């Protein structure tokens, strides 16, 4: 413990960097969790239609509060601005979109009504071929796929709605009804409602802070692998490990001592991160973390996650021969375990094989346990399998470290 305390710079890095990581990531990700974003993305729009449909598209985009519409006169100009990275997106509405859509809808409606014998002119008229129209989207090549997908879906939904409304309107006109008295309800009949978990009859809405505190706290806890393995190697290089080996104290006891010290560090780290989530986040405009009634379970998950991380750190520190081996290996292992565990990309969107691999990542067990407590509001029994796996991981890695050391130094 004294060795850690004496290294003020090391302690600062150990505690401050994870906090910084948590704050920065939460600030960055916060907007993706908000229903209405404070930020408007500038979008270039080339309106070659200048009709009813384009007017509605522009109206809908403006009303979405997500986009700031900047009109451009030429498709080439818009394309160049987007492909050079100045803008994320350009939408090009084709010429005669409104007229063609109207013609197509009218044609379809007339066709249907004639089948019912409602059309006055029953003479067969040859159908005019109306070419399909395409709304062109240009994305900055650096734009992330998830953003592209959500924009495409949004525009697709908007255009479908406009088409539906045009069809209803055409029917109304064909039936000779007044536009002022709509006979069709154009609103969606089927609606969605998200049912959230409740606690004391109150809905618990997950926010960016809860997601981030879960994921990044775990990430920080696992980073204990690096200083711990370096500490073990320093002892080997300083020669103090040689002295320790000649004392009656076993290697298991030495590792036990280190486990207690580094576990305390993990729990202090966790406490600081929770305090930041509870008090600092609301003060800087981020959603706060609600820990009411969850603290014992949260500390249980942190404790077992810390043990798993320490077990891996002890193993790396025992097997590695130099600090140059341990530090990069430890840091990269944490990043790989985080990726596999679902810290960055949710496990359910991973390919099947990676989903399987993810199940054997201790960071996945820890993350699921944190989500269970923070977001799913489950009881202790639900997190028991996850914390058991974390404990098993600690016991296995530590046992391997002890056996390896015994074999290597057997006399």
């Amino acid at each position, binding site marked *: 413990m004294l*060795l850690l305390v*004496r*290294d003020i710079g090391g302690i600062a890095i150990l505690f401050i960097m994870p906090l910084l990581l948590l704050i920065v990531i939460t600030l960055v990700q916060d907007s993706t969790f908000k229903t209405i974003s404070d930020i408007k993305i500038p979008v270039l729009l080339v309106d070659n239609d200048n009709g009813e449909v384009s007017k509605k598209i522009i109206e809908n985009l403006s009303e979405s509060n997500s986009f700031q519409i900047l009109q451009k006169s030429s498709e080439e100009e818009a394309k160049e601005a987007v492909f050079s990275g100045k803008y994320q997106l350009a939408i090009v509405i084709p010429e005669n979109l409104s007229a063609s859509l109207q013609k197509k809808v009218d044609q379809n409606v007339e066709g249907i009504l004639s089948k019912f014998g409602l059309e006055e002119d029953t003479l067969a008229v040859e159908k005019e071929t109306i070419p399909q129209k395409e709304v062109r989207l240009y994305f900055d090549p650096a734009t992330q796929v998830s953003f592209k997908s959500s924009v495409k879906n949004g525009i697709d939904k908007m255009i479908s709605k406009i088409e539906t409304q045009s069809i209803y309107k055409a029917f109304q006109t064909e039936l000779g009804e007044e536009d002022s008295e709509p006979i069709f309800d154009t609103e969606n009949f089927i609606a969605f409602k998200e049912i959230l978990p409740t606690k004391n009859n109150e809905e618990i809405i997950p926010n960016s802070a809860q997601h981030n505190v879960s994921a990044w706290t775990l990430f920080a806890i696992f980073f204990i692998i690096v200083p711990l393995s370096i500490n073990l190697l320093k002892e080997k290089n300083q*020669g103090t490990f*040689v*002295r320790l080996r000649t*004392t009656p104290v076993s290697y298991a006891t030495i590792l036990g001592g280190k486990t207690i010290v580094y576990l305390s560090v993990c729990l202090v780290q966790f406490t600081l991160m929770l305090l930041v989530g509870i008090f600092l986040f609301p003060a800087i405009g981020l959603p706060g973390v609600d820990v009411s009634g969850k603290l014992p379970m949260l500390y249980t998950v942190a404790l077992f996650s810390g043990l798993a991380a320490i077990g891996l750190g002890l193993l790396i520190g025992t097997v590695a021969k130099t600090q140059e081996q341990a530090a990069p290996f430890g840091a990269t292992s944490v990043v790989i375990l985080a990726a596999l565990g679902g810290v960055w990309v949710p496990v359910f969107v991973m390919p099947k094989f990676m989903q399987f691999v993810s199940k054997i990542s201790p960071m996945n067990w820890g993350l699921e346990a944190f989500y269970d407590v923070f977001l799913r509001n489950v009881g202790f029994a639900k997190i028991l399998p996850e914390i058991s796996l974390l404990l098993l991981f600690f016991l296995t890695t530590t046992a391997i470290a002890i056996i390896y050391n015994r074999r290597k*130094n057997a*006399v």
Partner: protein
Amino acid sequence: MIEINQLSKKYKGAEYFSVKDLNLKVEEGEIYGLLGPNGAGKTTLISMLTSLLKPTSGSFTINGLNFKENKNQLKQLIGIVPQEYALYPTLTAFENLAYFGSMYGIKGETLKKSIDEHLEIMGLSKFAHKKTATFSGGMKRRVNLIAGILHKPKVLFLDEPTVGVDVQSKNVIIDHLKLLNKQGTTIVYTSHHLNEAEFFCTHVAIIDRGVIIVKGIPSELIKTQNDANNLEDVFLVKTGKALRDHA
């Protein structure tokens, strides 16, 4: 006290044995010097005797005990002062000693008293609470020695305990080792300082290429060797003048 039978060590990938079929007896109360040029096998021998290295073949006992059967008992019985400083640089001298002392089960006031006494003898009392990173080589050597003797070992192994230190520090270390020996500690030590060994050791063994070339009481060894005035003469006659560099 120490009985070594046909002890050998060959490192993985090495062409030669570092220690080969070595036999040696060290009686209780002796100060036994293991002398030899660089790479002779002195440190390898001490490492095997202190359980730091696994012998390739052969055996040894210390006070009738061996590491396979009486590991903890034997570890309590021996003390080691390695050639490296083997101290935590960010800890003070007192903290270092308290930590290593506690590893032998010495606790509380007994531990504190023992540390204070040893620091006083070694002239380090006023530096007790200073970090060892700020110590000179001689001061570190003295703390290194205390760390190996706090638990009052019956047998003390020292690997070059006076290497790289000033004359004053060397005298303090040698005087303290003599005192320990008088109090009943058997000492096995390696050194390059042949003059020091000549006057300090009761017995010496000159080792070269892993085998003992000659052993006995220093004064008798000098007498038996024609034209030898001191141990250094005996050493040069027995080991030759050729350099022993190898990698």
